[in-house]
């Protein structure tokens, strides 16, 4: 810990490294945007900066854009630092993140000052209603600056802030350089959005950073390349093949789109599916159903790529089973409706090889009953496990020969992996790796020449898997029985099989020998040609269970902790034989810094590669003189994991290089001088109505034109743009409509995706109904995105198809639903807008010569007379969930949600309780939906 030597700050800081101090001084001196490489300690910088203001007292500082965990971190760090530097004026952080705090309480709070982290949606409302007076703000700290695009809520907040407050500071932070490099002169645009003039870039290769981290106190890193097993390799190859075919299909189906860079190489990138999605997004409402499915397939396939490396063989098979069940076709569907990758040979390879890793057939035994195939567990282990065990042993030896190491480190071994599931897997492995199966004595970990193995754990998993599979077969049957019947025709083989449903497996050749009758011509394929779901015959399963059952007694010794009673699921502490701890932890962004500081490990094993964690170790090592760290770094050679890691490192470097170039050639034109706010605003609004900006307002009303906006609408960019057009935006909790332009005009805004979903659940119909009850001229605004193509035409040609206009068919496309809506409400006007910018102009135009709306009347519309406004505010998601439940109608939904607390309460109610609220028939349906048991049913 070093003390900052600037005299006016008697504050103790925890920024030991040179670049950190440098950056801190810079930030104290002026407003700027800081883009820093991941892992270089962004949060530490922020908390120190906040503390320096906090300690001074008498400040009102707003933190914008912080996530929950960041809030927690900042809060903790501020309290800690206040205690260390004994600053009497420090007040710590107050988090305002839900609507729980009442308006009056908030007002009082703001008046007191201090540091507040406020959710953007609440902040913008408070600023607009001047609950929080802009002039009183000392400064704003903006996290995740990369998200501030022109139409974002954060940009809106900053604009309101800068409009009235020109002296307060503004410091923006980001640790992801990617978004700053997309588009035309992105850095300059972003900075204009934030009203900042200076950008400060801190890549890992910055001279000061490199100097601080690569001094004499370097961390020792050992890289270990682990080969994949043949089966894993085969699965990975097969998945890649599926990805390739999917991409090919995508290209075929969307010939009009730009997609040169959709190839297998980019498919390896971390966010390929996101990228494809983003590229398709402008046309998302126009692409065919099939394209959407392939895009979601890509996500599934990519998750499989990760799973094959991360999960153990049994869990992987289990995941495959689930995915397969979920992708099985809808009743009566044909092969056109199924994911194309399921039809490939490669898909078969995936499923077959995954199974092979778990069990295979034993050579047929000749029994009195004839030839019976039985299964034998294979239980392939992940290669990394053995290596992990080896490393731990090596560390043991190390510690044994050199027990008293100099330095401050604990003799702790920290194992880092990518997620908590892997944590759990490793914990299980380490706990059981010395338990030998097939021995009756107690396991003896110190036994000579015993190789650690996962067979105990794997057997246990297999046992669980087999149990799960039996239940899953039932569930699957319950859910999709119609589908299967539809697929298999009139004769259902399951009925012939008796009590247990095992479809005669047609998956492997040996099956045919073993009495399989069906499907000899198409092995592994269902009637429609996709990969068939495969269920074992009871006899075989019994064998397999018997095989793994042998060590049931051992299993009793250590009860498997399924649910950890501790609150904190992240950490699992286990006593290892040398009395030190092995801590297994998942990568967790900035929180990893805390882990390092708290655990002070001597040895770190990185089970999976992560570039930012390496930097954190570097920072950690350099920050402490006397802490030695040795890092083992594991990755599967030639795997997607390795390539992804290398690609991410390369991309970050490229991004920073681009940013540095742009900064060098950037012309700084924006200003925040006396009348300066108007300038960026102009750029932001693109067009300015000179009649208004000139000062002589030509509008008919004397008062500023105003629009009443529903608070939930602040998630969209329209309120920001309305405000930018000099309209007075009044946030209110509205029951009817989204925007009230005049006492007569009420507007319901729908983006295209909203429109589709609200047609589907009938929401729009009832919204239109209520609007007509309260307003003379209700309007539906269909708003396209700025970058989306302004058309509803699907790529597929629908015209001339007689079936598509048949009124008896359920209409599927958007056009026919719009037609129905206008027929149902002939007086409903439709506004078509190509972008939010356009909408703002239309609103202004509609408002001319109309009286101003009355906010109080707008809020009262649609409310029951005896009910207070507060009771009417609903949370959307639980509502939507309840709306799906059979038996719940829009009418009784209201009743239900008023009388009950949450979804859980409804799920636990009895028929009697429910029927008093919504009537008998509906109650029965709702109760049935929640209580239908899919497992313990006799079939």
């Amino acid at each position: 810990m070093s003390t900052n030597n600037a005299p006016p700050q008697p504050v103790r800081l925890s920024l030991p490294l040179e670049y950190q101090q440098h950056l801190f001084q810079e930030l104290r001196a002026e407003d700027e945007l800081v883009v820093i490489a991941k892992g270089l300690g962004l949060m530490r910088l922020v908390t120190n900066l906040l503390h320096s203001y906090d300690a001074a007292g008498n400040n009102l500082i707003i933190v914008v854009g912080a996530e929950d965990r960041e809030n927690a971190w900042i809060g903790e760090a501020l309290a800690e630092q206040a205690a260390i530097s004994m600053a009497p004026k420090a007040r710590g952080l107050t988090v305002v993140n839900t609507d729980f705090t009442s308006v009056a309480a908030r007002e009082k709070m703001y008046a007191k000052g201090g540091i507040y982290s406020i959710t953007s949606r609440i902040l913008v409302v408070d600023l607009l209603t001047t609950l929080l007076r802009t002039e009183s703000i000392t400064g704003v700290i903006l996290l995740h600056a990369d998200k501030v695009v022109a139409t974002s809520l954060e940009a809106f907040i900053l604009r309101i802030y800068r409009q009235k407050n020109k002296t307060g500071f503004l410091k923006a932070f980001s640790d992801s350089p990617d978004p700053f490099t997309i588009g035309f002169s992105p850095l300059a645009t972003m900075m204009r959005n934030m009203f900042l003039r200076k950008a400060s870039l801190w890549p890992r290769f910055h001279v000061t950073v490199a100097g601080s981290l690569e001094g004499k106190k370097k961390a020792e890193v050992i890289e270990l390349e682990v080969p994949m097993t043949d089966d894993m390799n085969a699965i990975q190859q097969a998945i890649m093949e599926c990805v390739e075919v999917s991409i090919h299909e995508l290209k075929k189906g969307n010939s009009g789109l730009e997609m040169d860079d959709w190839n297998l190489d980019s498919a390896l990138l971390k966010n390929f599916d996101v990228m494809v999605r983003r590229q398709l997004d402008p046309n998302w409402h126009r692409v065919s159903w099939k394209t959407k499915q392939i895009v979601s397939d890509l996500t599934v396939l990519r998750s499989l790529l990760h799973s094959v490396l991360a999960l153990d063989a049994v869990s992987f098979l289990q995941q495959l089973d689930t995915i397969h069940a979920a992708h099985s076709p809808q009743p009566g569907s044909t092969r056109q409706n199924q994911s194309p990758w399921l039809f490939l040979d490669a898909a078969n390879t995936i499923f077959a090889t995954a199974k092979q890793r778990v069990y295979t057939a034993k050579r047929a035994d000749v029994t009195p009953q004839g030839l019976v195939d039985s299964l034998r567990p294979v239980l392939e282990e992940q290669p990394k496990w053995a290596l992990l065990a080896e490393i731990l042993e090596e560390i043991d030896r190390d510690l044994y020969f050199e027990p008293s190491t100099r330095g401050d480190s604990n003799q702790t071994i920290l194992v880092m992996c990518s997620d908590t599931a892997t944590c759990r897997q490793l914990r299980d492995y380490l706990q059981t790796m010395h338990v030998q199966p097939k021995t009756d004595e107690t396991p003896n970990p110190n036994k000579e020449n015993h190789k650690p193995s996962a067979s105990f754990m794997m057997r246990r998993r297999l046992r669980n898997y087999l149990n799960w599979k039996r239940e899953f077969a039932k569930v699957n049957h319950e859910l999709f029985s119609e589908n299967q019947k539809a697929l298999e025709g009139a004769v259902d083989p399951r009925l012939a099989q008796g009590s247990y449903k095992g479809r005669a497996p047609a998956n492997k050749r040996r099956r045919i020998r073993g009495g399989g009758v069906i499907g000899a011509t198409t092995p592994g394929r269902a009637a429609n040609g996709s990969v068939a779901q495969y269920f074992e015959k009871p006899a075989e399963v019994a064998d397999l269970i018997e095989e793994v059952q042998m060590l049931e007694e051992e299993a009793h010794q250590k009860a498997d902790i399924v649910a950890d009673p501790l609150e904190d699921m992240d950490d699992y502490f286990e006593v290892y034989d040398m009395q030190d701890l092995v801590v297994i932890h998942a990568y967790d962004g900035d929180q990893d810094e805390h882990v390092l500081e708290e655990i002070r490990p001597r040895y770190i094993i990185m089970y999976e590669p992560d570039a930012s964690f390496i930097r954190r170790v570097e920072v950690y090592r350099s920050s402490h003189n006397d802490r030695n760290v040795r890092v083992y770094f594991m990755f599967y050679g030639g795997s997607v994991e390795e390539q992804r890691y290398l690609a991410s490192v390369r991309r970050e470097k490229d991004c920073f290089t681009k940013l540095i170039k742009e900064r060098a050639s950037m012309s700084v034109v924006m200003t925040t001088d006396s009348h300066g706010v108007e300038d960026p605003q102009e750029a932001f609004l693109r067009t300015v109505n000179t009649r208004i900006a000139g000062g002589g307002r030509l509008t008919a009303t004397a008062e500023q034109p105003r629009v009443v906006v529903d608070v939930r609408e602040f998630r969209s960019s329209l309120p920001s743009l309305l405000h930018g057009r000099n309209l007075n935006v009044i946030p209110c909790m509205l029951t009817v409509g989204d925007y009230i332009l005049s006492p007569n005009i009420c507007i319901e805004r729908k983006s295209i995706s909203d429109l589709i979903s609200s047609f589907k659940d009938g929401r729009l119909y009832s919204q239109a109904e209520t609007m007509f009850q309260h307003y003379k001229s209700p309007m539906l605004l269909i708003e396209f995105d700025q970058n989306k193509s302004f058309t509803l035409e699907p790529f597929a040609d629908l015209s001339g198809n007689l079936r598509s206009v048949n009124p008896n068919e359920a209409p599927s496309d958007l056009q026919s639903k719009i037609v129905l809506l206008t027929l149902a409400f002939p007086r409903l006007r439709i506004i078509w807008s190509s972008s939010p910018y356009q909408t703002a102009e239309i609103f202004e135009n509609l408002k001319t010569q109309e009286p101003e709306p009355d906010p109080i009347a707008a809020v009262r519309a649609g409310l029951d007379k005896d009910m207070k406004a507060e009771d009417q505010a609903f949370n959307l998601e639980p509502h939507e969930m309840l709306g799906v439940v059979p038996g719940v109608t829009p009418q009784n939904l209201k009743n239900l949600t008023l009388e009950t607390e949450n979804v859980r309460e409804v799920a636990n109610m009895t028929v009697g309780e429910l029927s008093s609220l919504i009537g008998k028939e509906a109650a029965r349906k709702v109760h049935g939906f929640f209580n239908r048991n899919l497992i313990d049913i006799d079939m």
Partner: protein
Amino acid sequence: QALPQRSSGSSILVSPRQKGNPVLAALRSLPWEYSDIPADYGLGLTTCALFLSLKYHRLHPEYIYTRIRNLQGKYNLRILLTMVDIPNHEDSLRELSKTSLINNVTIILCWSAAEAARYLELYKSYEHANFSAIKGQQATGYAEKLVEFVTVPRGINKADAISLVSAFGSIKNAVNGDPEQVAIIGGWGEKKVKRWCSVVEEPFRVQQ
């Protein structure tokens, strides 16, 4: 459902003014005939449509107002079928939005003759349709309802829904599940677990 057809009810009535409009060539699914009507297309007893190309509108902005005036309030639903055939449509569309409010017409945008024809066909064929299709409440099977119910929170997909319910046995149990129990299900990462568990506990009403 089969409703008694009126004498000329089965075909779209087209004003002779529309002769030569490519939309007519694209009208293929339903019969149409010329008829002397004030509107461009008669789509039923109470529904009519005026056709407007934005290209034309830009040259003759007063044309459409004359046409609307000539309708004389005869129809209940008056569609202004507007073809967007110019790139900078913003000004015209803004003006038309205002017009629709004042003159009581409903704007429907289309981007090609084929789409325009499809709208006309749809209006005609839905003349007597009921509105159940947009009222929601479509009866579907238990499995679909279940998947729909579980996948409401963002980020939870179909496969997750099925693995969740197969792990818990029933939706009720799944709703009552602890975060720890949900977390051990394959495919359920921390984010999903958190979303699921918070949404079932989230109060319906926002507390003030």
